């Protein structure tokens, strides 16, 4: 039983932050609650953000896809803007989380703000250059998702609220794919790799390689990305892709735990990165492949 004194329901993002700061005592934001009810924190009140107008998924006039922090994983998995963006990478990541009833209530915001190294939406979002929107009582800030995570269970938020994320219009036509290794289907991931890239005129434009469960925070393998960006696809032999995988493996910082050894995780980063790159490069060119610069 969660020993809360009060449950506050916010009607807007600004009101949510104000309710959080009002005291007395300590508060916590609640969205789906699928994490909070498993590990109820010691606090006095919860601020519910499900009525704060953050549940929508929309395409902005600039062509970005905006996903509100309170959008549920089921909504994300089935929304046409998300399934149609970069091969549906984010939709697939959402569809692989938990089980059907959990996805009815679990949200994007809860997945990211938990800041677990194994959060399943994080690698997909990092690979897609997601930008997060953070609200204060009467101001807003945006920053790249890479800068959002500070450590396990630590983000830049403080007592501010995550309002949502935007997937930039430039990435809508990227090729993208991900792999996630687990011991059993419902267990948390041992290793997650998500790769997104653009191809134009036979050359790689942007390359994004995002890793989960292999460092204190979800991360990008930027050295490996830099090895590939701008290269002619015809020059990318299997050995070069394997090298990129090894570089990505050298960039991560996994730990030994009861699920897997650090050495295994690191090796799998190399293998999965190579396979994902090879698979994406072998895809037939599509009309929507865009030559956006890295």
């Amino acid at each position: 039983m969660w020993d809360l004194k009060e449950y506050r329901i916010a009607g807007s993002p600004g009101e949510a932050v104000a309710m959080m700061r009002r005291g007395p005592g300590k508060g916590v934001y609640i969205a789906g609650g699928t994490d909070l009810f498993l590990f109820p924190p010691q606090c006095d009140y919860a601020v519910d953000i499900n009525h704060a107008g953050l549940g929508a998924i929309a395409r902005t006039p600039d062509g970005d896809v905006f996903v509100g922090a309170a959008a549920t994983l089921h909504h994300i998995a089935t929304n046409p803007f998300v399934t149609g963006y970069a091969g549906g990478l984010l939709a697939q990541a959402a569809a692989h989380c938990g089980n059907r009833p959990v996805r009815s209530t679990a949200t994007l915001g809860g997945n990211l703000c938990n800041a677990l190294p194994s959060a399943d939406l994080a690698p997909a979002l990092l690979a897609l250059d997601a930008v997060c929107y953070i609200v204060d009582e009467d101001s807003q800030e945006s920053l790249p998702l890479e800068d959002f995570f500070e450590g396990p269970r630590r983000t830049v938020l403080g007592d501010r609220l995550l309002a949502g994320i935007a997937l930039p219009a430039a990435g809508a036509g990227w090729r993208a794919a991900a792999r996630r290794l687990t011991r059993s289907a419902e267990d948390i991931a041992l290793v997650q790799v998500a790769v997104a890239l653009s191809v134009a005129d036979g050359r790689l434009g942007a390359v994004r390689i995002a890793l989960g469960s292999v460092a204190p925070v979800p991360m990008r393998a930027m050295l490996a990305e830099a090895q590939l960006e701008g290269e002619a696809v015809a020059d990318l032999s299997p050995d070069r892709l394997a090298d990129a995988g090894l570089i990505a493996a050298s960039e991560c910082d996994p730990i030994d735990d009861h699920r897997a050894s650090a050495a295994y995780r690191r090796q799998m980063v190399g293998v999965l990165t190579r396979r994902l790159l090879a698979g994406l490069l072998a895809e037939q060119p599509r009309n929507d492949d865009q030559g956006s610069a890295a």
Partner: protein
Amino acid sequence: MRMDLTLNGRPAQWEAAPGATLLAVLRDEGLVAAKRGCETGDCGACTVLLDGQPVNSCVVAAARAHGHRVTTLEGLADDPLMRRLQDALVEHAGVQCGYCSPGMLVSLYHLLRACRAEGTRPGDHAIREALSGNLCRCTGYVKPVAAAAAVAAALAGIPATGTEAR
């Protein structure tokens, strides 16, 4: 805290602790079809519908019900689709101890009701996906899936008159 909701098609008021789960309040109210299994969102014994969506009521705040619609197996007892599912589960020997059955029935009801509305017929994959949150430690899954497939085959003929249809 005080809550006003639509419970099984009727207006209801609850007085509940701010940190209570939906499952705890339902069971205190005498609605005990939803079971306490794992209480960690894994087993689905506690599945109910919140605004028509299946949720694990053990990991949902009771306060979420305020201003919303909660439907439990009890509220679907007279629904022709639910009755067919119950009969099919028995006919296909998809029930042993029965602890998982209320949750499975609510999940399958949600799937088949949506399929009927869309005029589609779910295949085994969709049925398995719908049951992805319902663990059964006795019967397994082959028989419940067969039961659901049998109801799915006759879906168009089942009238939509239940609580959730209103």
